């Protein structure tokens, strides 16, 4: 039993923390929110140069990390600073889909991975659909083989980073009904080809997403990643890794929210006293600190089981995301309340942090969805 970071991860943490606390200001945040890309290309490049993307991928595919605790170490730092760059979507989700499950990546996949690690490739995973909610295999988009080609028809929802992406990885169903694990395939698509239509929006917590319409998109069979109809495992593994990342990111944001709140309570006067001297508020701070420790433990559990068997892995992930979802909401709301109005102004760091915390629940399943998954996995 050992809860210390390895020396390498400690160094990664230190360098990320230093870089982000130097560079990632509220002003940058506000500029980025309304920028055309939804993120800063400069920051993205610098993060890649720091080796941050490589840290999220295994040595076998050109990275130098990729384990659960690598992901959680990186994302806790991204969360502390409220980073909006699409690290999760490009590097974790698409990186994991390209790195795949078994065997080595193909040459084409490896090339994309190398470019990704170098910060030269933007990707997006077009998976969610209007009726999928948070179900992992609920894909209604159809892929129909026609000779050497495959024709994709369907709609993908809230595809984060779609507009900036050089390539989209699209999930589609070759056989079976919505919800089936069998029959899913992944395709690598240039978003500029005929039949693909995007409608973009800025996201409230930073970044951009698009609704993606696939209207009879004709692809070569060679654009398929992996075996036809057998993508469910690959998708689930990528999502598991993304959920660990997201939970760690939220933990980091919770730490910042709590720190800002404690700073505020110990500098702000009201009724002639520091507001931190009011016992009712002190008890609420104590409860926040307890919840942060609970969240930290939940993230450790999830990261530590990421390489475990899928059933065990997913049970710990569901537990962690449920706990982080619940306690994150509490920390976000309490931080705002204990600050008062100032917390709601875009000029103040907390405003960005609480949006990251709350809206994280809307990716891959909110606290209730995670609770259901945990119940299902516990019964199994």
């Amino acid at each position, binding site marked *: 039993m050992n809860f210390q970071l390895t020396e390498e991860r400690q160094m990664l943490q230190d360098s990320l923390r230093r870089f982000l606390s130097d560079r990632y200001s509220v002003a940058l945040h506000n500029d980025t*929110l309304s920028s055309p890309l939804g993120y800063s290309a400069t920051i993205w490049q610098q993060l890649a140069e720091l080796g941050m993307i490589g840290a999220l991928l295994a040595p076998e595919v050109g990275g130098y990390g990729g384990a659960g605790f690598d992901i959680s170490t990186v994302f806790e730092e991204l969360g502390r600073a409220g980073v909006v760059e699409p690290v999760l979507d490009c590097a974790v989700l698409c990186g994991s889909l390209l790195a795949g499950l078994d065997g080595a990546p193909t040459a084409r996949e490896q090339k994309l991975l190398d470019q990704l690690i170098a910060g030269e490739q933007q990707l997006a995973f077009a998976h*969610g659909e*209007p*009726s999928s*909610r*948070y*179900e992992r295999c*609920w894909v209604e988009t159809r892929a129909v083989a026609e000779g050497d080609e495959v024709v994709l028809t369907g*709609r993908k*929802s*809230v595809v*984060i980073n779609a507009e900036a992406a050089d390539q989209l990885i699209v999930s589609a169903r070759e056989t079976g009904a*919505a*919800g089936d694990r069998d029959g899913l395939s992944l395709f690598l698509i240039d978003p500029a080809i005929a039949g693909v*239509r995007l*409608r973009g*929006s*800025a*996201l*409230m*917590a930073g970044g951009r*997403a698009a*609704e993606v*319409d696939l209207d009879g998109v004709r692809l070569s069979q060679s654009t398929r990643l992996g075996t036809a109809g057998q993508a469910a495992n690959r998708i689930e593994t990528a999502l598991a890794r993304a959920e660990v990342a997201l939970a760690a990111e939220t933990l980091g944001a919770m730490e910042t929210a709590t720190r800002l709140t404690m700073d505020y309570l110990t500098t702000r*006067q*009201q*009724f*002639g006293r520091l507001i931190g001297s009011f016992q*009712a*508020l002190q008890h609420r701070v104590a409860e926040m600190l307890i919840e942060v420790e609970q969240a930290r433990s939940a993230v450790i559990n999830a990261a530590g089981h990421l390489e475990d068997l899928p059933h065990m892995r997913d049970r710990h992930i569901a537990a962690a995301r449920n706990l982080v979802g619940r306690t994150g*909401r509490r920390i976000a*709301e309490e931080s*705002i*309340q204990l600050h*008062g*109005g100032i*917390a*709601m*102004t*875009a*000029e103040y760091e907390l*405003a*960005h942090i*609480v*949006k990251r915390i*709350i*809206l994280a*629940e*809307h*990716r891959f399943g*909110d606290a*209730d969805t995670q*609770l*259901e998954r945990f119940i299902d996995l516990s019964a199994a």
Partner: protein
Amino acid sequence: MDLNYSTEELAFREQVREFLKTQLPKDLSESVRIGRTLSKDDHDRWHRILHGRGWLAPTWPDTYGGCGWNAVQRHIFEEECCRAHAPRVVPFGLTMLAPVLQKFGSDVQRNHFLPKILSGEHWWCQGYSEPGAGSDLASLRTRAVRDGDHYVVNGQKTWTTLGQYANWIFCLVRTDPNAKQQEGISFLLIDMDTPGIEVRPIILLDGTHEVNEVWFTDVHVPAENLVGEENKGWTYAKYLLTHERTNIAGVGFSQAGLEAVKRLARQQMHRGRPLIENPHFAARLAQVEIDLMAMATTNLRIIAAAAEGHAPGIESSMLKVKGTEIRQEINDLARRAAGAYALPFASEAVIGDNSALAPPEGTEAVAAQYFNNRKLSIFGGSNEIQKNIIAKAALGGRA
């Protein structure tokens, strides 16, 4: 005990419904329903329609142009307006300043200002809060120094709601810096066109511009714009705050919000079934509905007592706390129901093209409203302040 409205009350409700059905513009109710930010013109239109019907000032005495309604009628009117998605009437002139002028203003002030509030010629905003004085209102520092027949005002107000549309502001200013905190405060009416006033927007976390900072640099205010006596402003301010508490429970808003969540949850799918059938979502929904049913009755109990002349005491504070908790919980449910569609900004989605790629109806503003309504438990006396009030009153001189 009788939980039902009387025949007269039902008839009144029918009258209100008919008015709303025929007079409330469809585009306005649609904007309110989907949570779109209203323009100044939207507000003005509805103000004029209500004024035309004589229903703009339910809380005013008849003599000044009020409706002569009792507490139950006012409640029915508010309930029906919420149900019909009518815009909320901007309260600063009508329900906050007006009672102060009616009780403490001079005849000249009453005759000048009250008609202009009704006509909409004056759009008032509130100059109470200051940076560094949130719930601790009395610690304000904006100074007004008497100079002949004027006051010269210097200082800064903040959280000034819709100040960007206002042409008048009522302000608490410190006229005697040596007096104890709650003494030495005066209540001034200030024309926003006076030189030296600057309004700066505060952008909130959801991207909206609804509050402002108002800066005063050597602003000259005619002395006749002082309400009541110099240094007695705290008395008027407290009186005003009791009127801020009208419809504090927000039952109508919660009921409309809950209906919107249900519509959304019937339409959003989960594992091939409507989300509303999911037992965990249904449990959250039922829980808040049950709380709201009870609070609606608590609200009616207090209204019924008020209609018989009992002044509400700590009940207002109780309604504030529970009412805002329920509204915020409904906002949370709405964002939950929207799933991933809560992520994009409403502004673009609503105002953009109406192609087939638009987000599902009802998801446009859920995240913005969730964040924006965190203010409910902060402003108007934070919920912590309300709990202090309740505990102090209940434990009496005993603790």
